[in-house]
């Protein structure tokens, strides 16, 4: 099956001019619709960088290769257009935005995406109903949803708020960047339930994590090891178990 997300021989740098640093170095990856792929790899391997390149953050330059999403060159679009096409990133470090309440933000974002797709705006009652249900599922109180985005939220609450947005927006493709870090055991379960509820034949997911414990809940179809800017090994769920036991050194050494 052709990939929903197809990356081939991707090269990218961060920084400008003489400062430019090559981070992604010949990365190829294919995630078909309906599949969940995990990406694991040592600190500094380029996992978050990959997520930023796919979502169009400033400061990164693609110097070679390609990235297509449903056949379109995703790199040609600005971040908001990519979001409108259904690309969602759950940030490793969600950003605090003082003065912009969660509900205002999420509703503005949903309507902007809908507009980009030529759909109608979500009605106020539908929005409130949906946000109540999902908030309840994720243990986010009405009071929390009135606060400015991420301001005064604990680490775990911020991650749950990312999943809240994801469930509200129902994106076509999810990139979860260490969504499990900072979550307590119960929250890990609720977040995983939320992610699993979004699994669908039309939806793809890329799950970046360091830990097997998330993969226990979200069984991935494939596991990739990203090191030094490339996918150096791909396997099934058993690869994650091996990594957990042997660490990256062994696996990376064997691949090189």
């Amino acid at each position: 099956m052709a990939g929903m997300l197809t990356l081939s021989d991707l090269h990218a740098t961060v920084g400008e001019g003489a400062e430019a640093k090559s981070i992604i170095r010949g990365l190829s990856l294919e995630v078909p619709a309906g599949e969940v792929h995990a990406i694991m790899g040592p600190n500094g391997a380029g996992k978050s960088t990959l997520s930023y390149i796919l979502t169009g953050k400033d400061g990164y330059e693609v110097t070679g290769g390609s990235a297509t999403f449903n056949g379109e060159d995703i790199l040609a679009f600005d971040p908001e257009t990519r979001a409108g096409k259904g690309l969602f990133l759950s940030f490793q470090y969600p950003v605090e935005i003082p003065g912009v309440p969660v509900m205002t933000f999420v509703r503005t974002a949903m309507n902007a995406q809908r507009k980009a797709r030529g759909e109608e705006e979500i009605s106020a009652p539908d929005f409130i109903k949906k946000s109540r249900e999902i908030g309840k599922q994720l243990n986010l109180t009405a009071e929390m949803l009135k606060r400015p985005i991420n301001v005064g939220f604990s680490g775990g609450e911020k991650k749950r708020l990312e999943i809240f947005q994801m469930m509200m927006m129902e994106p076509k493709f999810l990139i979860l960047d260490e969504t499990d870090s900072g979550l307590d055991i119960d929250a890990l379960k609720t977040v995983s339930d939320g992610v699993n509820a979004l699994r669908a034949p039309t939806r793809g997911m890329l799950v970046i994590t360091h830990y097997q414990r998330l993969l226990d809940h979200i069984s991935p179809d494939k596991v990739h090891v990203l090191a030094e800017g490339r996918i150096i090994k791909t396997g099934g769920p058993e690869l994650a178990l091996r990594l957990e036991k042997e660490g990256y050194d062994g696996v990376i050494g064997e691949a090189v």
Partner: protein
Amino acid sequence: MTALRDLIKDPSAAELELIARYGGFAEDSRRERSFKAFAMSGLPHRRMEAFKWTDFKAKLKALDGGKSGRVDPFAAVAGHVITVTPEAITGLDKLPEGLRMVTRDDGVAFGASEDVPMGALTAALTEQTIMFDVTATPGQAIRLVYQGAGAALFSRFVFVVRPDVELRVFESHLGGASLNASLVRFDVKARAQVERTLIQPSALGEAHAITAEVQLDEAGRYTQTALAFGGDVARIETRLVHQETGALAVVNGAYLAADGHHIDFTSHIRHGARACQTQQRTKGAVMKGGTGVFQGKFHVPRNVGQLTDADMQHNALLLEEGAVVNAKPELEIYADDVECAHGNTCGALDAEALFYMRQRGISEAQAKAMLTEAFIAEALEAAPDAARDILLQTAQDWLGV
């Protein structure tokens, strides 16, 4: 006329016109004092320390008329409307109960003449100073609407707010003249409260000099909220004195300067009595080609200024490259038992926040607008309910939210 003409060295066309106007008044020693105080400098210019960033002389070359017909953002705010045009002041009849009017055709002394040249000019060239003795809390707010086409508009109001009385004033500075100059004075007696809320919509082709003097007696309260968009040159100047103990002043404002606009917030606050409080919060956002100026001074004398509690915050956003913000916060403190703080920042929008919002599908323009609105909102929070939403909405319209 020659003698008058010599008052200002190398007068510009605008200054000649101002001199001619002054020449039209009957002789009057107080008017003369004010005009001479103005004439010492002429239209203030960049070689004067207090105007180094705000050059009226360069920006106001001639008095050849402004642009009238601006919509009043406060139109829907309930209140007794007094309209001030270059020709006349209307709405002085059927005043709300509690307000007694006294008019003065002669000059009325302006204490800060030497330090506030635009205020001195306004004092000198205002035909009729309107004084209100506010003896009981009026059932209505007072709305001062400044507007109308013409060469120049000068006006002056004095409110003496008697003990325990509450007064609410909304000012709409709609412009229309080349030079729009207003002077307002509030004498806030013991435990009285004044809320002053003003808006100054974009006024390209015009100069605005909006000056207020405030004196607070024992436990008097004064809350000022200003939203200004500037013009060729615009200065909102506030001189406030804590005269008796226990007074509280909240002096807030926001400026939004688009291309070609200049807006200046200048304030001088004197803690001339024990245990008085000042909270000052000014926020600004400036686009390419716009200029924002903040000059704030707290003066806390020895002895009388003890137990002062004062905080001055100015934060500005440079929305684009080519935006200019100049700021000079000054704390002049001679008393030792005081709590005085100040903060002053100037920077771009948070790139991380912008990306986060865009990743969720919000366009760059809208994300910038939302972040800017959130940024300035704090400076408008203390405005009365009836006006706060209007101020926010007006800011949103400018931002294109």
